């Protein structure tokens, strides 16, 4: 186990290094990009731009600039945004992380529970009309574009039906930290949780159902049945665990990606200022420091999530050994 952890930590560092280098290169290869212009405030004359370049080392070779940026990101932690010289990037990430984590954790709990329930139900009810019905609902869920779902949710809960008893409890859009007000934190996240999980439930339910039906016919299941175990026990103890491989793999990926800023459209639509929101601002303004910081933050969580998933494999299917 220890070697596993050590190995993964080393790999994490390597992944972060590679991804930041790639990001750096892509940024500077984009035509029309000029950090000096962003720092100097638009339409400064060429003389001022030249001074800025000298002052910020923007004339130096790319690998030197990269090293300097990594240093200010990790070591001195005083990396400053290009599009706003008064903004320190690292504290912004720190302030945004709880919002994203709250959003993603809550949605994840919801979608995992509902997806398992739905997938089980569909597999159990195979042959009846409820199976295809559930699957259609599932498909509608994940065929919906996320920003569209969010906009419709807002239309209903903030605008059309806001004054009815159904939605009058919905606070204005935005994230309130748990420390500030637990009730407001919760109330403000309910609709975003439902919207975000709505998009994933269907996918996962479908995947689970397919695997459940497949595993049905494995030898060990027949053995369990032959032993005279009740169907429900067979299902939950034996079949479900082995059907979760795909489910868990995808979950690790999606969770990692969402924390890394993948929920950006949901965050933008609901006014939640999380990592996704910062990512959105960053690539809209082509602000390299913020892009770098979000990418590093994201890479860390993605590698972490995948490592946890790899460990989970061993528990789910003892035939698999984590590498």
């Amino acid at each position, binding site marked *: 186990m220890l070697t596993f952890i050590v190995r993964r930590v080393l790999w994490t560092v390597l992944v972060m290094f590679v991804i930041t280098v790639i990001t750096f290169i892509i940024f500077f290869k*984009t*035509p*029309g*990009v*000029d950090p000096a*212009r*962003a*720092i*100097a*405030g*638009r*339409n*400064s*004359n*060429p*003389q*001022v*731009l030249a*001074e*800025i370049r000298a*002052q910020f080392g923007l004339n130096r070779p790319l690998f030197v600039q990269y090293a300097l940026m990594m240093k200010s990101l990790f070591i001195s932690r005083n990396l400053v945004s290009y*599009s*706003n*010289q*008064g*903004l320190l990037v690292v504290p*912004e990430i720190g*302030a*945004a992380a709880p919002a994203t984590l709250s959003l993603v954790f809550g949605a994840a709990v919801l979608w995992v529970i509902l997806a398992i329930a739905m997938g089980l139900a569909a597999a159990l009810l195979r042959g009846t009309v409820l199976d295809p019905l559930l699957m259609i609902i599932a498909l509608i869920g994940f065929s919906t574009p996320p920003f569209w779902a969010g*906009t419709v949710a*807002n239309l209903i809960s*903030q*605008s059309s039906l*806001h004054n009815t008893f159904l939605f009058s409890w919905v606070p*204005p*859009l*935005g994230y309130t930290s748990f420390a500030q007000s637990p009730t407001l934190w919760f109330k403000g996240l309910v609709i975003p949780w439902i919207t975000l999980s709505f998009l994933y439930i269907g996918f996962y339910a479908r995947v689970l159902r397919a695997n459940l039906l497949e595993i049905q016919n494995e030898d060990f299941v027949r053995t369990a049945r032959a032993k005279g175990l009740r169907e429900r026990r067979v299902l939950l103890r034996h079949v479900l665990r082995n059907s979760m491989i795909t489910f868990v793999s995808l979950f690790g990926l999606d969770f990692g990606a969402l924390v890394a800023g993948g929920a950006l459209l949901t965050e*933008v*639509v609901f*006014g939640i*200022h999380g990592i996704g*929101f*910062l990512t*959105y*601002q960053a690539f*809209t*303004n*082509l602000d390299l420091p913020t892009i770098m910081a979000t990418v590093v933050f994201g890479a860390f969580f993605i590698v972490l999530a995948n490592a946890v998933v790899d460990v989970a494999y061993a528990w789910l299917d003892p035939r698999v050994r984590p590498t």
Partner: protein
Amino acid sequence: MKLVRSATHQARRMRRRPLLYAGAAVTAMAMALAGCGTSGSSPSASNSAKPKSGGTFTILANSAFGVADPAQNYTLEEWQLLINTHDGLTQFARVAGVPGTKIVPDLATSIPTATNGGKTYVFHIRRGIKFSNGQTLTPSAFVTTFERQFTVPGPTAFYSDIVGASACSTKGCNLSKGVVANDSNYTLTINLTAPDAELMDQLALPFAYAVPPNTSLKLTGNNVPPGTGPYMWKSYNPNTEAVLVRNPYFHVWSAQAQPAGYPNEIIEKYGLQVSNEVTEVENGEANEVFDGDQIPSDQLTQLNSAKYAGQVHVNTLTADWYMALNTKQPPFNNLKARQAINYAANRSAYVKIAGGPSLAVPACQILPPNFPSYKPYCPFTTGSQTVWSGPNLAKAKQLVKESGTAGQHVIVDGTNDQVGTALVQQMISDLDSIGYKASPQLLSASIQYPYVQNSTNSTKWNVGWSAWYQDYPAPADFLNVLLGCGSIHPNSDASPNIAAFCDPSIQAQITKAESEEATDPSAAAALWTQIDHEDTLQAPWVDLYNPKQIDFLSKNVHGYKWNPQWYILIDQLWLS
């Protein structure tokens, strides 16, 4: 002032004002403004209640305005707040309508007349005024203020004719000869290298508002230095909000220049989509949708409802939305080709993209309505020569034939948000209808504006979208800044003459008009009108429309005043 749109989907407009002003001398012809603006407010219930102080006024804006240091910030968004927290030597009268373009003294006791051939102004500074940190205002505060203009990266052109300014840079600035402060008899002398009839206007811009003498000469980032206005900055984070609270040291010395404000606190919150901003104001959960945010179609329809009577105000802006024609590349290096597309452009379609006739007025000429020296002129239509009534496709096609440019490829550059994409697609349709082969080039907003200005990209586009809002009411602000030969800076991201249009005979007239400003203002005004019409006929642009602006306020907001320079006067609003 250039309007740059952020690439955010819903809030498509973020005001930034990058201006490279090439030092003209034109008096602010405030009193010469003709007519009244076509503004409208939805019919409201009687508003006869008495104003009362108190409450928190909340503004919702899609995005923040960048760095808050007033020496760098060139956005209307921050300027609307800075006029409440800081003061300058002069100010635009803080009243509604046309009288709001008049220059009044603010921290100066009176507007001085120039001496020394128009190159020296002596201001008497008011006594007994304190900054929000308790420091007393002295004339030497202005030395720091002007020096910061050059040591902090940002636009410098407004004040570049101060003696000593040419030697200034971000490394250091010594204006001791140009800005002479006498703290014992409270006078401030400004010495210029050449007469500048627009100086009083320029001193009324937030760049020149007083900050304490010991303010750092470096960028103060998001910490705004203390000011003398009725409010002070408590905090600003571009990802969350800005908070303004009352300045305990403020007292009213001139109600025309800086009246007391009504709300106790002003908060501006960032990051919501515009559609959600409108919903919150509809629900009364906030008080104003930032007027620079573009309200989308659905919400515009909602605002027509009688439910919001009295809460919606529309005002004409002195601004142009246009497509610059690249005069250095075929086909638009040919005058007939440029005129052809002007005849073909279906301006009413562009107006529809802007939200309909209540939100935009078709434009043909350079100067906008209600602007000094504006006289209606539209040669590019059927029939009348003053008002656009429809495209003239026959004439357009004939001109294309005469120019010999038919069938050429034309690249139309614009921003990739919804309105930008729509405008570009309509232009492509107009170009295709007269025989060109047009294709789009939709770029991120943060890239597009510098891209079309930079001459190294000149071979890559033929038609480029842009927009310009006045800095202050002076014809040179449009005619010389955007179409003057001196505004072409090769290989620079800052070359506001996007069309790269330079006509020596017109330029000579511009020079003449500028020099006549001080001596014979009415002749200068007439000359500017002529220049406007000549520029229009040379067709360096396809001017599309003059936009109007919507102010949407919540039900409990009263006292709405619209000033042509600063637009909505926030601290003059009161809450019931």
